[in-house]
């Protein structure tokens, strides 16, 4: 392979700078003792303190985390079962239909998902608030879990199941001790992605959240519409920090499990 020319390096450097500049800009001004994102006066942690002293914001933060964890858990269960079910469908036409229906929510724009769920919840009579937000997050996370688990199931050797059955394992044993351990990395990846989708979502939540319930994204939106507040900068500093931790943790985790399964083969 040819070496990168200097101009190529400069180009890449500019792209990286542009990608990261706004994020660092936000975090930088979160330490500003002034109250705007323009002139930096002196270093302070006041805005971070304000985040942790604002009980309303803390409730919203807890709401966000609870919705993310619960919806990721429920959608992982439904999605994993769904993937196992899809694999057993022999009729290829039926299977393809299921798979295309699976992808509808992945490719649909958030606005359409949000609007159609708003109609659905209102018609069924689900009160807008925690329940509707949780259901919506479960709904759009399920297909992601399916897509993460399915490849693992497809690459699994069928004779593993046959061997277990021949050796006298019950169906439950086959499920718990052969299939689930084998597809475990896919399940974890699905859970993790569902978690990040839920934490990140704004548009769908914005449609199905009522007056009394709010998640972090929705709250940031209303704060941002009201104008610049360095509390938002402090929140973004925290979010950035947590994101980096999660990414590092995820890569550490996946590289460890792939090494482990690699060693077993």
């Amino acid at each position, binding site marked *: *392979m*040819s*070496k*990168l020319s200097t101009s*190529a390096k400069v*180009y*890449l450097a500019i*792209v*990286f700078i542009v*990608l*990261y500049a*706004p*994020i660092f*800009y*936000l975090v930088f*001004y979160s330490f500003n003792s002034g109250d705007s*994102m*323009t*002139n930096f006066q002196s270093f302070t942690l006041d805005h971070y303190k304000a985040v942790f002293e604002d009980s309303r914001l803390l409730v919203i933060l807890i709401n966000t985390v609870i919705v993310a964890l619960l919806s990721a858990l429920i959608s992982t269960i*439904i999605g994993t*079962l*769904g993937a*196992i*079910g*899809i*694999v*057993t469908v022999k009729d290829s036409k039926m299977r393809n239909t299921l798979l295309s*229906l*699976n992808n509808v*929510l992945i*490719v*649909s*724009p*958030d*606005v*359409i998902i949000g*609007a*159609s769920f*708003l*109609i*659905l919840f209102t*018609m069924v009579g689900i009160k807008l608030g925690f329940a509707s937000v949780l259901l919506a997050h479960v*709904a759009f996370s*399920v297909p992601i879990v399916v897509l993460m688990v399915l490849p693992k199931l497809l690459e699994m050797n069928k004779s593993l199941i046959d061997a277990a059955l021949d050796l006298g394992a019950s169906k439950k044993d086959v499920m718990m001790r052969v299939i689930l351990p084998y597809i475990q990395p896919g399940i974890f990846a699905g859970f993790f992605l569902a978690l*990040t989708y839920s934490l*990140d979502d*704004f548009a769908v939540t914005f*449609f199905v959240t009522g007056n009394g319930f709010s998640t*972090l*994204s929705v709250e*940031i*939106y209303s704060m*941002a519409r009201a104008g*610049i507040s360095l509390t*938002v900068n402090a*929140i973004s500093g925290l*979010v*950035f920090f947590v994101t980096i931790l999660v*990414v590092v943790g995820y*890569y550490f985790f996946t590289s460890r499990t792939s090494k482990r399964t690699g060693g077993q083969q």
Partner: protein
Amino acid sequence: MQTKTSKSALFPYVLWIALFVIAPIALVVYYSLLDLHGNFTLNNYKSFFSSVYLKMTLSSFWYAFLITFFTLLISYPTAYFLTKTKHKQLWLLLIIIPSWINLLLKTYAFIGIFGLYGPINAAIEVFGFDPKQMLFTDISFVFVSVYIFIPFMILPIFNSLDRLNPTLIYAARDLGASAFTTFRRVVLPLTMDGVKSGIQVVFIPALSLFMITRLIAGNRVITLGTAIEQQFLVTQNWGMGSTIAVFLILFMVIIMLITGQKDKGGRVR
């Protein structure tokens, strides 16, 4: 053998499909046929074809086109150079990380950056020009959208470039093709799949953006997404909102058919 237990595993999943995939679409179509009082009507469709909505649809497409074009223009070289770096997976990860930061926070950053006293205006003043109001213009809207979409465009292009067999490039060069000809006749056609999926993941969301238009473009830019949000949450005219949603779904299907990779067998033209 164990199909019975596995079939029952399918039950909650199929229920999910029925409730959250089929029912919502059916409901959107149903609501598009209702007027404000819940009476059956085709008026929503009639008003969609009035000049107001047609203009809005056209401008939405125009902005989505601009956003996709500039995103592609920046992303292709980036992905190309990335595949040639030493630790390319690490660099790719660094490109992807910003896409994990909440979209709202990144958009919010630009309110400060583009502000009248923000860093860009400060830089402009250094060169002796007057500061300009950059926020609430369509240029800032396109800029922020491109910024947001760059990682999503780079990823599929990077993957298709990475899969490209380098011997094909050596062969082209051995046979006397210039670097540019090699790129135009070998690299670009073979990575077209990546470009197509990149366009897909940028163009459809770009049609339906509503948060960036509100925060960055003021109310100067109205996309199909903004219109749907407006009809549902502000005007409370769910019928008209659903009608716009029906058309957005139609456009989405058309775009996916155009950019879809259905002719896998017919690689050679």
